[in-house]
């Protein structure tokens, strides 16, 4: 398979739509329990020891809403590149936070994927998973044409025709 064919495949609208639905859906799903229990999420954030304790509650309150809104926007196509950028940034942040926790030997719950649903210790597998999800988010960033709805093209071309 040539590089051009790989690029064409990665930039295919169906691939873009799948990436949007996957990333957006995951963030919508995982934000829900955090929204319900900001106090518990703040504790998980505290466990990473990378945010000043003064700010732990603030992060616990605001971060789930950023995840939810960006996830919804990505799924339904409102400023999708900006939404993908936010979610890719969050994933990168999670990877860095997890890596720092590892090298400091912190034995903590990850607070990711299914928070508060049991004992999900921070594991290398989770960092790999976050890295893969980041690639999906990057697909949306790098191939913007994949999420431009066709009707906009049609509307634009009709407008161009009427102007002419």
């Amino acid at each position, binding site marked *: 398979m040539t590089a051009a064919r790989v690029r064409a495949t990665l930039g295919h609208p169906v691939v873009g739509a799948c990436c949007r639905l996957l990333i957006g859906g995951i963030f919508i799903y995982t934000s829900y329990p955090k929204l*319900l*229990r*900001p*106090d*518990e999420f*703040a*504790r*998980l*954030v*505290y*466990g*990473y020891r990378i945010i000043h*304790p*003064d*700010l*732990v*509650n*603030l992060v*616990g*309150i*605001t*971060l*789930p*809403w*950023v995840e*939810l*809104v*960006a996830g919804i*926007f990505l799924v339904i196509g409102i*400023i999708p*590149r*900006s*939404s993908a*950028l*936010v979610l890719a*940034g969050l994933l990168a942040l999670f990877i860095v936070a997890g890596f720092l926790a590892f090298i400091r030997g912190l*034995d*903590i*719950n990850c607070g990711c994927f299914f928070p*508060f649903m*049991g*004992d999900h210790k921070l594991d290398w597998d989770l960092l790999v998973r976050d890295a893969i999800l980041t690639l999906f988010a990057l697909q949306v960033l790098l191939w913007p044409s994949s999420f431009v709805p066709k009707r906009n093209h049609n509307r634009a071309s009709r407008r161009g025709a009427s102007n002419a």
Partner: protein
Amino acid sequence: MIVGALALVIGSAALGVVVNEISPRGIPLLFTTAGADSTPTPTLPKEIRGVDLRDALSAFDEQTALFLDARPPEDYAEGHVPGALSLPAYEFDDYFPEIADRVEEASRIIVYCDGVECSDSIHVAERLLEYGFSHVSVFESGWRAWAESGGPVEEGAEP
């Protein structure tokens, strides 16, 4: 794209702050410092009292409280507060009937898990409050603080 991302983050965060203000589960924007050991912690739910390490050690020495270990059973077996009963947060319904009599007899109940970042002790405390136990406290600094302070430790699956 970057402006849109910034607007999204700021708008969503503002929405979160507003919802938090009107939500019954809302928490203060800044952390609180619970107890004399000054461990900075996120906020406990309003209905649950917190105890610090000094209070926990004092209650243990004076035997004025029943300790409940909300961690998974394998963590309990590796080491726990002497006399503490195992009541894992995610197996509450399986474990509670076996220790219900002991819990009902206790004049004071202190629940703990790993440390400040874990919520298992809060889960257990909330379930006990639902069952009508009003004298329930959470030892927020938890097992880690207990062990690091040199508090007595007991090993094994049984109390």
